[in-house]
């Protein structure tokens, strides 16, 4: 079989697997609803079958078929029409056949009265009804097959003129580069504006005014959502110091977050210790305790590097989580029930209660953190961190006291997480072990990496995208974590430096692109070229 036909079949197989997976996790329903609300026909028909939502679902399948056809069309010369159509027909045919087969099976089993949702949780009757459009098994199978094949052929026709690069670079070019250029333009405009003192202060004033007014304009729902994002911004900025600047992969970051939250809760809540301290006293104590625990964790793991460090910190996080969940510490931390009635701050007789109030607090916290990090980043300490991240041995040889620097990074990162925890506990007026699972660490790590390691605007953008977007697109909530996982993998392959990388990081990650391709035998990494002469 010629190479190109094999490639087309591989593409078809990939799309077939993706289609089956999407159907089995019930994504076609959500996608149909989203498309429906975009087209403005949502809710006009309940899940009944042939019109409305069913049509939206078919549009969704057609879009995937289109994509399959586009990727199956060969891109290199000679790009004959016949080759493109042949490839698309093969890929679309395979994907369509598999989807049709699935539809046939589902419709047939459903007609036979088999309860599929016992084993496949998403195949509940309403989903099955939508998926099969109330048609008989053979008809829906045929419909799906024809739909995918036709859309794949259309995709090939579109692709022949449009896409000529391989997909990772294409994706990067299409999404990343324009975004960068856009942001670069914005950056340059800000730079130009800040060159002049008057316009600079005017700009700051405008931003400040906007930030001050924003929580008043948007309702309580948005304030709460933004508050959640804000807490993750704080956490992300803290982890950015540890992972992004110092290069220490910490998977137990949630520990410091929980320590901050529990400290403020224990000090201010009536149960279990009845201390009832003021929030303003508990706040610095919470931060200090978190920072101290960061340093204490740092001491034993100083010698470890890379992935061993990741696993040890993960272990620490799990130890704390297990302790908090168990009954052993019930008298001290409230055990599995958590701690209720955590105090909020009061200022000049006014209690901070609404989401907007906390938004202001968090904004102040974030500004302080950004200021501290910026000063550190450009200081001797920051340069030592970066040197350590690049090569610990060399950094030590250059006279960097790696011991002190690592502890400092751990302590500062933990302090920032502690601040986030303090705000979190006091905003929710509650803290319990279920809020501090490994998923928090992973979420924060995701947003730091996706946003751009070592770059604060990137981290903030990451928090907005990864925490804010799912809140806005509520329907997608169920699929958030699956998408996160896939996003992390794709990100590492396509754009390991994140959406908004620091300049230095981007140069590092793409250092080899100007060099000839390394041979494909999977030889161990050639030593990375360092670009220390490039100042960010």
């Amino acid at each position, binding site marked *: 079989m010629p190479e190109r036909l094999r490639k087309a079949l591989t593409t078809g197989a990939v799309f077939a697997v993706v289609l089956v997976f999407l159907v089995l996790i019930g994504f076609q329903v959500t996608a149909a609803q989203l498309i429906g609300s975009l087209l403005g026909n949502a809710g006009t028909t309940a899940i009944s079958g042939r019109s409305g939502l069913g049509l939206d679902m078919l549009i969704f399948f057609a879009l995937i078929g289109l994509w399959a056809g586009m990727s199956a069309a060969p891109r290199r010369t000679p790009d004959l029409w016949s080759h493109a159509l042949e490839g698309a027909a093969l890929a679309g045919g395979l994907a369509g056949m598999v989807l049709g087969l699935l539809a046939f099976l589902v419709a047939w089993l459903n007609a036979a009265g088999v309860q599929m949702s016992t084993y496949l949780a998403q195949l509940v009757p309403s989903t099955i009804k939508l998926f099969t459009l109330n048609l008989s098994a053979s008809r829906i199978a045929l419909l799906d097959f024809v739909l995918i094949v036709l859309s794949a052929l259309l995709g090939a026709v579109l692709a022949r003129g449009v896409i000529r690069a391989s997909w990772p670079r294409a994706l990067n070019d299409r999404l990343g580069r324009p975004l960068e250029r856009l942001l670069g333009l914005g950056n340059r405009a800000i730079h130009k504006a800040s060159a002049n003192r008057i316009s600079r202060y005017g700009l700051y004033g405008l931003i400040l005014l906007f930030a001050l007014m924003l929580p008043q304009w948007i309702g309580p729902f948005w304030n709460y959502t933004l508050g959640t994002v804000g807490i993750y911004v704080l956490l992300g900025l803290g982890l950015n110091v540890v992972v992004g600047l110092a290069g220490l992969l910490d998977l137990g970051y949630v520990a410091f977050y929980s320590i901050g939250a529990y400290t403020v809760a224990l000090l201010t809540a009536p149960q279990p210790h009845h201390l009832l301290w003021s929030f303003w006293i508990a706040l610095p104590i919470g931060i200090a305790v978190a920072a101290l625990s960061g340093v204490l964790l740092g001491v034993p793991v100083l*010698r470890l590097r890379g992935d061993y460090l990741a*696993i040890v910190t993960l272990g620490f996080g799990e130890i704390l989580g297990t302790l908090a969940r168990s009954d052993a510490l019930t008298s001290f931390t409230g055990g599995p029930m958590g701690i209720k009635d955590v105090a909020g701050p009061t200022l000049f007789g006014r209690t901070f209660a609404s989401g907007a109030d906390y938004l202001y607090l968090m904004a102040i916290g974030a500004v302080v953190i950004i200021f501290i990090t910026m000063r550190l980043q450009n200081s001797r300490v920051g340069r030592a961190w970066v040197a350590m991240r690049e090569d610990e041995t060399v950094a030590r040889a250059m006279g960097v006291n790696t011991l002190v620097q690592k502890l400092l990074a751990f302590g500062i990162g933990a302090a920032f997480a502690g601040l986030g925890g303090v705000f979190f506990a006091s905003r929710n007026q509650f803290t319990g072990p279920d809020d501090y699972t490994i998923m928090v660490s992973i979420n924060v790590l995701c947003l730091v990496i996706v946003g751009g390691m070592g770059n604060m605007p990137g981290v903030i953008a990451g928090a907005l995208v990864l925490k804010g977007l799912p809140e806005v697109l509520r329907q997608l909530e169920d699929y958030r974590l699956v998408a*996160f996982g896939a996003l*992390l*993998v794709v990100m590492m392959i396509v754009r390991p430096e994140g959406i908004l990388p620091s300049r230095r990081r981007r140069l590092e990650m793409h250092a080899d692109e100007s060099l000839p391709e390394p041979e494909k035998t999977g*030889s161990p990494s050639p030593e990375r070229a360092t670009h220390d002469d490039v100042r960010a």
Partner: protein
Amino acid sequence: MQQVVPLRTRISLTPYQIAQIVIGISFSIYLIYRFYAVLIVERTYGPDTWLRLVISGVVLGAVYGLIAIGYTLVYGILFMINFAHGDIMMVGAFGGYFVFEALRALPVQGGSFLDVYPIPSVLLAFAGGMGISAVGGYFLEKIAYRPLRSAPRLVPLISAIGASIFLENAAQLLFGSQRRDYVNPAVLARGSGWNLSVAGSTVVLTYTGVFTFVLSVLILIGLYLLVQRTRLGRAMRAVAENKPVAALMGIDVDGVISRTFIISGALAGAAGVMWGIHLGLVYYNVGFIPGIKAFTAAVLGGIGNIPGAMLGGLFLGVVEALGPPILGWSFQLADVIAFAILVLVLVFRPTGILGEVLTEAKV
């Protein structure tokens, strides 16, 4: 021949080593005291309870050991923690579960296929679980790790974490978040077994436990022979030693790495099916905690060391079972003991108890 022996060796200790020694000694003293207190003074538990704990620890440890071998194989070759390995085990556990469910629904003369033909059923379940896990391992490597072979070290680790999140949550979406009961063939019913009488009370040596332990040991022996005696095993060791030179010797490095992932996936799948048969529950993140513990076991035995991984698993299982009563903690805290061992071993003896087989220093 006479050797020159230095007359006097200078002993110089760094503060770190002093701390190690101090912590080690004080911990040992505390442990001895606890042993004395629990076994001789308090006598909280009779020998029957201790035996029960040891049995459960050994069986669980065998499963940890099997998973740990997968970590060791992959780490030995790629120097990366295959963070999604525990989730590959989960995939295998589900594979076995569905085979059992399908066979249970298959009517034959005298009942369901599952109960009438237990041996073929179990074989089919293992074939299903190991097969799906092997496929999972193969594609995991191909999609998430191979493009990153020459990237900085944190990049594949993050990709592995992503793959792990993806697998867990995909399983949750596909199969729901409820815990599912593994229904074994009637012969292997959980809880039934040989009754031993110890100190006046009965200790049940369950069939599932014995089955799990014996099968793990058999798999371990098979794997050891594979790595030591076959062409593929020699290729694997060569690739672990030095990839470019192995390639120069005519070894298909990518192929060997793929096959390593297939083998480690199949082992994880076997462990998953055993987990289901012995402990009886599968759910979408069933692999997470055993995955971390198995990594501990792999490090404990010395990364790259196959018998070490098995011994590390057994040791961890037993310590986890015996630790809480000896330290006087509640059994909820068994995980704390396992993770504490992980931290202590990585911090104080990252080469493991039996020592690394690898030549270079990886830590």
